[in-house]
């Protein structure tokens, strides 16, 4: 599904290398987790994959189902089935949540040559998904993320994911700032989407989330590289001992 090879990225504005040769392959049906110290480059990796401006790829490749991602606009990547749940979802005053979601869904459908969803069908779809995430109708009426609590913003990300049904989902610290119940909701949302045609890359600091979304592979990122990969037990080790031992053993 997602193949990243020797990816080197620096900031466009200054000569600062952030990703220094990332190799990662996520197969369809799999869930991979990425853990790693603050500032190690996890969000940068997710932004570069989603197509945010401000970064320069100096070497390496990233493909989604064989298609080169790095030359595409963000909307083209989305239409191919890539989705990023933001670490910090953006507030957009004046744009209603529903308008936003409908525009996004229909734009993706159009790009894929599918028919647009009519308003009634769309409403039904969103209501259904929102209900399972305990997002009430009031919240849907409000402008995108404006006045949402931290947890509401994260649930709204998962709602978007549920509606857009992407094939490659990247979740950047979607569990941060969630209370125990909300985390359970988010995990249920993710698990409901799990399937043979879909893959997940879950960035997190906490093993707790991985109790609910059990990963196939756990990667440790440090200083712009994947320095260790293993099974779920790797996350447990981080939880108990921090990163020091792992980083020492690979140094």
């Amino acid at each position, binding site marked *: 599904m997602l193949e990243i090879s020797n990816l080197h990225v620096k900031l466009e504005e200054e000569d600062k290398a952030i990703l220094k040769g990332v190799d990662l392959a996520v197969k369809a049906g799999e869930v991979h987790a990425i853990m790693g110290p603050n500032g190690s480059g996890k969000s940068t990796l997710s932004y570069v994959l989603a197509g945010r401006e401000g970064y320069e790829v100096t070497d390496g490749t990233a493909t989604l189902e064989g298609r080169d991602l790095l030359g595409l606009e963000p*909307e083209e990547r*989305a239409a191919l089935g890539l989705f990023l749940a933001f670490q910090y979802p953006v507030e*957009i005053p004046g*744009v209603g949540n529903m308008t*936003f979601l409908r525009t*996004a869904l229909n*734009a*993706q459908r159009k790009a894929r040559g599918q028919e647009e969803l009519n308003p009634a069908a769309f409403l039904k779809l969103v209501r259904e998904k929102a209900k399972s995430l305990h997002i009430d109708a009031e919240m849907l009426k409000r402008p995108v993320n404006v006045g949402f609590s931290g947890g509401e913003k994260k649930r709204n990300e998962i709602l978007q994911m549920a509606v857009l049904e992407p094939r490659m989902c990247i979740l950047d610290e979607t569990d941060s700032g969630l209370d125990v119940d909300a985390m359970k909701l988010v995990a249920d949302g993710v698990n409901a989407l799990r399937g043979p045609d879909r893959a997940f890359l879950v960035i997190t600091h906490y093993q707790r989330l991985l109790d609910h979304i059990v990963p196939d592979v756990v990667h440790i990122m440090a200083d712009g590289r994947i320095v260790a990969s293993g099974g779920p037990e790797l996350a447990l080790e981080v939880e108990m001992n921090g990163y020091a031992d792992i980083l020492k053993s690979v140094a």
Partner: protein
Amino acid sequence: MAVPALKIDGAEVLLDAWPEPAGEAGWARAVRARAARRLAERGAPVRRDEYWKFTDPTSLTAEPALPAALLADDEKPMLDGADQLRVVFLDGVLAPGESDALAMEGVEIRPLAEVLATDITWARELFGALEERGQVPVDRPLAALNTARATEGLAIRVTGRAPRPVHLVYRRSRPEAEALVRHLVRLEAGADLTLLESGPAAARFNSVTEVEVAAGAAFHHVRTQGRDHERRAATALFARLGEKSLLKSFTLTVNGRLTRNEHVVEFTGDEAVAHVAGACVGDGEFHHDDTVFITHDALACESRQVFKKVLRGAATGVFQGKILVKPGAQKTDGYQISQALLLDETSQFLAKPELEIYADDVVCSHGSTSGAVDEDALFYLTSRGIPRRSAEELLVLAFLDQAIAEVEDPGLGDELRERLAAWLERRRQ
């Protein structure tokens, strides 16, 4: 300080360009003469004037007016509900044949010339009175010209709840036509009127409306200015608000080479409310100026100014907004926001927000910003699959929405949004 000869000469040119109205009552002639004298003494506006430093008035004062091409695809009517009293002005001249009968329950409505030829107390108390008050502390020479010379327009007196809006529809037929239009509106205590204005008025349009809103009355004003590209317009709305009265005025401007919209509002009764708002979009040769002066001279009045401008292709936006709180005007609540969204680096926004406060128990705030489309928001939208162009349009409409939200009627608000969306869409090609 002596008034420069340039200004004095300019005033003479302006006054000579229009015939002195004939056949009017003595009182009207006296008002005209006073206004002409005021203009002659204070002079025409020039770029050097502090009040015109952001907007060059030359093309508003030079004779003759420059012609402005008529819009090729003609203007789709706006604000055009079925249930309204429509009055059409063709090239600035009342066109009775195309207008509804000037009759409505609770409303007296007549051509301006008719009331100026007779002795009607309310018109006599209003005509030129608010304009004259509005000349202090800043000169408004184009409004003085209007008082001295305008013969077209309506005089509207509202005694109850007007059952339907009055819609002034401006149409153009000649590329060179210039228009001078004056409306008088008086709302008696407890009365209620919605006044709509739409359409391209003239190559050069000088419009003044004086509105007296008595205690407990409400005046709603929604206007869309013509979207013909080359036209120029200088408009002024003078309003005086009595106790617990309400004024809401919203203007949408799409295109036009030069627009100066002035609002001069004075609170004379306690606990009155005035909201003045505007949204404009312009691309290329577009200069749009909102100049607002709000005087609080009563207790516990609320004023609110919300102006949003979207500019592209070296377009210029101007905002000059002042809140003056006179001594004793305690519990004043004054708010002012002016914002420009610059869609490229060649456009500019010039803003001069001012507060002048002589009372201690007031809440006044103002803010002015200009900037580009928020890149973080753009990335968020595009990362969800929305093409960059549509994402930008969504953000532009969202930016303008705070001003449009000032329009109370949701149907009208949606119509304004549609026109803005259409403007954005036309710019895509």
